[in-house]
């Protein structure tokens, strides 16, 4: 189960990576102090993966891909809840519900 969103920004991949990977960088745009971030992997300036979750929420995995464009940068984020077997559930759910 996952969601995917992307945006293009007028900044370099390094600037975007900095804003995602450092606490000082995140303070400029991410205001969610109740969520704890645990970084899984850093691959500057192309990729960053972290896990996070609040006190009463299941942990989710957030995967950022940072793609250099001729002018600017594309940021693609995928947030997933890997243990939620939604694909398997929903595939045949219609049969049961009917």
């Amino acid at each position, binding site marked *: 189960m996952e*969601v995917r*969103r992307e*945006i293009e920004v007028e900044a370099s991949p390094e*600037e975007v990576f900095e*804003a*995602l990977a450092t606490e000082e960088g995140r303070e400029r745009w991410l205001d969610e102090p109740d969520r704890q971030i645990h970084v899984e992997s850093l691959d500057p300036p192309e990729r960053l993966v972290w896990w996070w979750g609040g006190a009463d929420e299941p942990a989710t995995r957030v995967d950022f891909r940072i793609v250099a464009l001729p002018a600017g940068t594309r940021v693609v984020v995928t947030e997933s809840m890997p243990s939620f077997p939604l694909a398997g559930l929903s595939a045949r759910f219609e049969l049961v519900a009917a």
Partner: protein
Amino acid sequence: MSDQIGAVFAALSDPTRRTVVQSLLQEGSTSVPALTATLPISRQAVAKHLAALEDASLLERMPQTGREVRYRLRGDALAPATAWLKDAESAWEGRLGRLKRAVEKDPQP
């Protein structure tokens, strides 16, 4: 909402309970004796797993016809998951917008 999705997630984090849900997707309904016959666990353990799935609102008891209590998946079992997807989508819409403004307005030296 997060409590509900948390309960669903916790219920499905157990491999035996995922097997139960999987078999319900195939069979439509099940019972403690039916599951005890197919799973390598005790009758009591089966009853516990079914109770956990019922608590998470994934299962419900069917209207009783005989002596046996039968269970089926609830029609709205996936509602918390759908709600999570919607919330996560709009949250990232907002966060990426703020990220864009942050890096464009205030570039690093």
